[in-house]
């Protein structure tokens, strides 16, 4: 084992609920994970399982009716949930920055690229407009945008999708944050651009030695970039381990299901595996384990009692009654 890594972000039993007219939607209901300095954590899960809400909860960006009702978020040893709005504003952008899913809508159409990049700089540092623009040009060069001197004065609609995502990355990195949260940064892009953006993010990560939380539903992206992986289902972390463990020894039926539903070159199957059913409506979660309605390992115990998150091995957390059976099944395939 290499030298001990510095813990940057620790989340304990985070609960974020939405108080809607139809009832309480428990979008995030028990999320635990750790992010170490210089590492990348991937959060995977289907749409609507609470990945983005987790990200917004860390940034404390949720407005009514969303509210973080429980748990703890420790960033550099300080609890974020007790910070005032003004303190949070100093952290956002400077310490924790975020890249959004849709580069088309995440840039303001009436402001120039240069303005939007320099805005954060001028917000957090005491620098002049000209200096900020100079820094913005440097950042644009860094993220691989050609002729940055011209691009700073252009508006988002003059840039292509990939360029816009690069500009978004430049914006997020403008104040050298220690933690970057990327909420499906490649989903809205086509595959070749996706690869370029991932490469860019990887190289930038090496440069600034920051940590990254990569939120995605694309296991390919995760395999490419992540060191550790948290698998989410219905607002809960169901499995958390390093990349190798997740891909080779999945111990949760949901992780197992996700992995078997990826087409593989080294296996001959007639039909692609699927996980039957859909993510349950967060207003009416099934009793017991939330995955029991779709799980092929489910027993009566799963319907009665919800499993707790237990430590199966070191740094390998799991929320399942039948991990041993899953492991055995997985050994046959992976």
């Amino acid at each position: 084992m290499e030298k001990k890594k510095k813990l940057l972000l620790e989340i304990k039993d985070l609960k974020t609920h939405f108080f809607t007219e139809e009832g309480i939607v428990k979008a995030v209901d028990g999320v635990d994970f750790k992010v170490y300095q210089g590492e990348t954590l991937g959060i995977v899960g289907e749409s609507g399982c609470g990945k983005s809400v987790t990200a917004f909860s860390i940034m404390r960006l949720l407005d009514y009716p969303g509210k973080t009702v429980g748990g703890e978020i420790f960033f550099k040893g300080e609890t974020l949930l007790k910070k005032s709005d003004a303190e949070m504003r100093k952290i956002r952008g400077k310490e924790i920055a975020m890249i959004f899913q849709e580069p088309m809508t995440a840039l303001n159409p009436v402001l120039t690229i240069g303005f939007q990049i320099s805005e954060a700089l001028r917000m957090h540092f005491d620098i002049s407009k000209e200096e900020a623009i100079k820094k913005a040009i440097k950042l644009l060069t860094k993220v691989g945008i050609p002729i940055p001197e011209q691009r700073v004065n252009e508006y988002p609609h003059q840039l292509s999708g990939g360029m816009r995502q690069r500009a978004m990355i430049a914006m997020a990195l403008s104040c050298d944050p220690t933690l970057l949260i990327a909420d499906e940064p490649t989903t809205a892009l086509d595959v070749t651009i996706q690869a370029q953006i991932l490469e860019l993010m990887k190289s930038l990560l090496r440069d600034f030695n920051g940590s990254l939380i990569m939120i995605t539903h694309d296991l390919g992206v995760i395999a490419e970039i992540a060191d550790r992986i948290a698998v989410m289902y219905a607002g809960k972390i169901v499995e958390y381990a390093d990349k190798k463990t997740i891909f080779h020894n999945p111990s949760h039926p949901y992780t197992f299901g996700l992995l078997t539903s990826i087409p593989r070159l080294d296996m001959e199957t007639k039909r692609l595996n699927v996980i039957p059913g859909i993510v349950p409506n967060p207003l009416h979660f099934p009793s017991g384990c939330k995955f029991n309605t779709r799980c092929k390992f489910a027993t009566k115990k799963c319907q009665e009692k919800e499993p707790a998150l237990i430590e199966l091995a070191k740094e390998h957390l799991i929320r399942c009654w039948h991990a041993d059976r899953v492991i055995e099944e997985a050994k046959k395939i992976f």
Partner: protein
Amino acid sequence: MNRILKKLFSNITSLMGIIILIFFIIIAIFAPAITPPLSDDPYQIPRMSWDINPQPPGSPMSDNMIEAYEFMEKEVKWEKAICGTAEGGYDIFYGLIWGTRTAFKIGIITVSISMLIGIILGSVSAYFGGWIDEILMRITDIFLSFPFLVAAMVLTTVLGRGLDKVMIALISFGWMGYARLIRGSILATKEETYVMAAKALGVNDTKIIWKHLLPNTIFPVMVQGSMNIGSMVITAAALSFLGVGAPVGYADWGQMVSFARNWIIGSPGNAGQYWYAVFYPGIFIVLFVLSWNLIGDTLRDILDPRLRGEL
């Protein structure tokens, strides 16, 4: 911005509006050159005679008036009432020229201040939401529940006579439309991802409203404002006509129409005898309001993508 100007000038209706408006702007700028004031307060319409009846266009200044001005050491630069005089010898032409300045003053000051109030209240209300929104919008509702003209009239009566009082009254009951309008657009725009992205970068609320939300939402308000400049002038004229506006002898078109009330119908057998007393200030009001409405209409056409056929 260039595109908007180009369209404004290439459209016949708006071009007409612009031409009329430029005509008024020139009058307002060169008012001291066209009709040099004869008293210390340039907005005081000079009298051409002491006649009770209005005098027709072209009537000369009476000899005793010329003597009086000479006694006051004022240089009389013109000796004929080009558009006639109103009751009491007030020169209509002078009133028209200096009244243009009054009209611009009323229109632009009332609209810009009420727009500012509306924008601030509306954007704060929409952006912060919750109980702030509730309180501000209920206040707006209360103000909206008063009939505009009656409320403005009562307030002017309470405050006393004078153009400044009229403007205060117009502003007090004229901001709600803007507040509602901007609130609606900001409610829609604040859900955009770029607002969230700006927040995620640590941009503060004031900057988000000012730099991110308002540039995306302000155009409907500008259109509304340009249309309202005309109607504010009309309302001020109405207040003057009802006797709570500008004082007698003040260079204000509404006041002039009001002052000519007794002479709208001429002597028996000659109904149109004193036409000039009402016609000139009346036509100036109409043209002024018309020009703003034409421009406002075209602005709306240009800025509303649905009407433009691009969506």
